[in-house]
């Protein structure tokens, strides 16, 4: 483009040469093209499935399923619908993901801090743990925990009694379940009130400390509020709670709450595996806080524990949270390996049995992908919110 013309004022370009309109034009073309692409793919899929005699649509969700599921958080038997198998699987996936995230975070933080410990043994134990379990494929670990542990546990009839009515054998962990009796609801509500009161107490104590610098023993008083008071009332009322103990009836234990070995093995494997990555994330986060901070805190006379808790960790959190989010997402998605050992998660139940009994691969795969997408986006959203809260607030 040479400006050999004498006119210095830029002339208004023709509409097809105007970059503004051009950009708009191409975007519209792109959207139309994409729309057409999607519509024709969906249309083609449907008509091809039709011509090949493959059923389509979502009517199958209302048909009775006709199969049993090992573990269900909602009522389920073979007379319930395929649609309900979706929810049974979904809840089982949420259960294992939730528990996994909780325990992996716990283990990961401990191990991450331990690896930085000045105590040689503690640091080495953490290092060995991380290096071993981070480098073995998760599926192998799942199989290991499942079959190795299952095989070494005693059978139902030789069940191990762990005391307090807890039974452990190769059919799972059986725990007595509490059966509330008359008046127990009072204790329960006291407990709830205790929690609410603690929240207010903590706020008040915080404010007071900011204003006057005086500290209040929030921890012990909240212990008293949440557990102490309800316990005293509970005992005064003559312990209105009985226990349903698991007992061997026929082939298996009945009564109490049973935790199936599939859940235990999967939880163990996911926790231990993801814990290593979280530990490394935590270590990186702590290392990212400059040593000057520690020195400054010490100079102020804070103890080691307090330095860690009040100075280092809050700053490290800002580095830790984003990669932590990825670990949570990994854990949620890895939980689908459940299917290898028969834990009835959504992939095993819905994308496995239900898909196979109905043959509606396209619909079911889409629904299952939708579930994982939703879970992942929810975790991301929550962690982003958490990240914002933890971000450096300038005063």
């Amino acid at each position, binding site marked *: 483009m040479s400006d050999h013309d004498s006119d210095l004022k830029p002339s208004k370009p023709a509409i097809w040469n105007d970059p503004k309109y051009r950009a708009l034009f191409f975007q519209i073309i792109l959207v139309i093209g994409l729309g057409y692409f999607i519509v024709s793919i969906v249309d083609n899929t449907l008509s091809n499935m039709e011509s090949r005699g493959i059923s389509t649509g979502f009517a199958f969700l209302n048909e009775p399923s006709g*199969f049993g599921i090992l573990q269900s958080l909602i009522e389920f038997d073979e007379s319930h619908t395929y649609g309900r198998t979706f929810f049974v699987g979904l809840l089982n996936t949420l259960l294992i993901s939730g528990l996994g995230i909780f325990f992996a975070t716990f283990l990961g933080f401990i191990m991450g801090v331990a690896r930085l410990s000045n105590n040689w043994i503690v640091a080495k134990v953490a290092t060995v743990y991380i290096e071993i379990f981070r480098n073995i494929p998760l599926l192998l670990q799942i199989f290991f925990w499942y079959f190795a542990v299952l095989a070494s546990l005693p059978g139902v009839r030789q069940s191990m009694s762990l005391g307090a009515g807890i039974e452990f054998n190769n059919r799972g962990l059986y725990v007595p379940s509490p059966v509330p009796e008359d008046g127990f609801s009072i204790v329960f509500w006291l407990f709830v009130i205790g929690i609410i009161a603690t929240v207010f107490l903590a706020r008040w104590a915080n404010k007071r400390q900011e204003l006057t610098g005086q500290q209040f023993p929030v921890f012990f008083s909240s212990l008293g509020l949440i557990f102490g008071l309800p316990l005293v009332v509970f005992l005064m009322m003559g312990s209105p709670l009985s226990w349903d103990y698991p007992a061997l009836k026929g082939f298996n234990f009945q009564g109490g709450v049973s935790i199936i070995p599939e859940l235990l093995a999967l939880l163990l494997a996911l926790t231990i595996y993801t814990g290593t990555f979280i530990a490394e994330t935590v270590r990186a986060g702590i290392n990212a806080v400059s040593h000057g901070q520690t020195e400054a805190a010490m100079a102020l006379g804070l103890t080691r524990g307090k330095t860690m808790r009040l100075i280092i960790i809050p700053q490290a959190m800002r580095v830790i949270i984003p990669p932590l989010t990825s670990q949570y997402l990994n854990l949620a998605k890895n939980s689908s390996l459940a299917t290898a050992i028969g834990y009835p998660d959504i992939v095993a139940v819905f994308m496995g049995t239900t898909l196979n009994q109905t043959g509606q691969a396209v619909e079911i795969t889409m629904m299952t992908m939708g579930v994982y997408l939703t879970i992942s986006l929810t975790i991301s959203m929550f962690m982003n919110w958490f990240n914002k809260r933890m971000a450096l607030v300038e005063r």
Partner: protein
Amino acid sequence: MKKLTSTLLLTSILAVAANTASADTLSSVKSKGFVQCGVSTGLPGFSNADASGNWKGLDVDVCRAVAAAALGDAGKVKYTPLTAKERFTALQSGEIDMLSRNTTWTLTRDGSLGLNFAGVNYYDGQGFMVTKGLGVKSALELDGAAVCIQAGTTTELNLADYFRENGMKYKSVTYDTSDATIKGFEAGRCDMLSSDQSQLYALRIKLKNPGAAIVLPEVISKEPLGPVVRQGDDKWFNIVKWSLMAMVNAEELGVTSKNASSMKSTKNPSIGRLMGGQGEKLGLGDGWAYNIVSQVGNYGESFERNVGMSSPLKISRGLNALWSKGGLQYAPPIR
């Protein structure tokens, strides 16, 4: 993973292929030079790879028969091991040309999965296997038991029906591979393992101590097992169907792999039709059935060799005897 891959493959094929007018499997088999056959991941007697990787079994013989008929060489088969969950998607997506994997013919599968069952190569029924130590003699004593089963099978459904019908409770531990199912049973996770009876006998010899397990007498369902093809390719459907029928007819007519070549010059017209001619009606060469019988053998030979008395499974012919011997194997005539 394989499952997801084939589902995605299926979706993309269905999505992209602009109205696939009945794909011609025979031509594609001829041009690639082998039949891609879906089998189990390892079920002794039915489809199982030996130490040197050769597949053997009653179901494998159907694949071999089809290759003999279509390509003139029973050896031109490639095998795709599939779990129960993977098998139908693999067939629908075109990953395999046919499925011969102890698969039960049911209305839902025939009617809504876009599949066609090409006959029955084994009449079976669901049963239970328990350890001797359990001291159970009948399935009706199993109230409250835990059962190891494989996902994506008719087993899951029959089990629920049976226990419901008899007012009993059960816990099903559902694995996705047969290996995990056996291991679960061996580790004592379940009181019993349930599957089609033939598979129970097959799986039992995979146990570390086969003598410690017994198969209970009850048979709780009908499981007609047979080869499956995609809907919409009638020519290929006919070829698979008649390959199996040729094996059954050969047994009925007394033609075996040993006497096949001498039978070629027979005066018996039925045998004559089996040994030559008729091929073009299926779109095949003239010697299609001769190739099957001489290379694979007749149905009876295949049965004895793989699952019968001369095999470790020692299953008697029972329902699978020829109709003329009190069984159910009855093939329409070749004429």
